[in-house]
């Protein structure tokens, strides 16, 4: 388990660097470190499906972030002293720590325990029930296909949103050009 703690420490360090560093490119690289460490953690916890998806989506996200931030002037705002915000942050953190101590005082169960009825059902019945040897695939596309439909709808909405917003900008610029010509 020691490697898990090392990777988690790496992720926390990457998050802090991503927030604190001034250079935007360095911040994006630090975010990439978080995603890579998370992917290795998924692999160590024996979830190769999630690890594959995580590393691939992280690559796309880092490419998009680098291309969107590089060579582009983004207004840098320096936030001044906010005593009220800092106070609320400390209060929230303190309450979270107290709640965690109260909850975990009696000790935690070991990882993956107790097994629930559903998680006992899938490994036994998935291969004979659906014919797919990848049990994760049989769950997300057969037993729980409604969830996948929702996920597909989320992506569909995101793409429609991006296409719509960007198209309206292009149209307006063309109209402006025509007005200028007239």
């Amino acid at each position: 388990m020691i490697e898990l703690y090392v990777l988690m420490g790496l992720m926390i360090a990457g998050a802090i660097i991503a927030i604190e560093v001034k250079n935007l490119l360095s911040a994006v690289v630090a975010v990439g470190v978080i995603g890579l460490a998370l992917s290795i953690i998924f692999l160590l916890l024996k979830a190769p499906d999630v690890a594959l998806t995580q590393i691939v989506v992280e690559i796309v996200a880092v490419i998009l972030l680098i291309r969107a931030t590089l060579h582009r002037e983004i207004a840098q705002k320096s936030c001044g002293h906010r005593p009220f915000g800092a106070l609320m942050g400390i209060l929230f953190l303190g309450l979270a720590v107290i709640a965690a101590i109260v909850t975990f005082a009696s000790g935690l169960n070991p990882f993956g325990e107790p097994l629930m009825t559903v998680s006992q059902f899938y490994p036994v019945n998935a291969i004979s029930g659906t014919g797919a040897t990848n049990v994760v695939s049989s769950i997300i596309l057969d037993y729980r296909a409604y969830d996948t439909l929702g996920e597909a709808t989320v992506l569909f909405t995101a793409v429609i949103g991006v296409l719509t917003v960007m198209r309206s900008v292009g149209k307006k610029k063309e109209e402006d050009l025509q007005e200028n010509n007239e």
Partner: protein
Amino acid sequence: MSKEHDRGMSIIVKTVTRLTVGLILLYGIYIILHGHLTPGGGFAGGVIVALSFINLDLAFGGSISAKIFSKGSTAVVEALGAVMFLSLALIGMKYGGFFDNFLHPDGNAGQLVSAGIIPLENIAISLKVSAGLFGIFLTLIVLQKFESEKK
């Protein structure tokens, strides 16, 4: 040297991309088609397919892959994937319920042609994800760059 050669990254990156981009595309298709046998599936494979097109754009600069796979056709392919996924779910209504695995008796577990409609659903999701992500990349980055170059 034509003007096309000046765009994009150095000649080393271009040569390596020319050699590897087909393998990346093939690996994505492998992940999609074996989604019901090995780790991976429609989502991860679709993102890898989109990444192979993005890789071409990044290395060669400009609109190389926009010529192969234009913004209009990404929208068409994405809608096609969504319609395919939903129609598979609706055909199941005839056999027993929404998302019923009506093709299940075909093939044995562990073979490429098995698991009923799960591989077909993987293909539908991969069409959606690859076209959707590449469409976002095109609109956010490549076409924006053309706008700023026109000015």
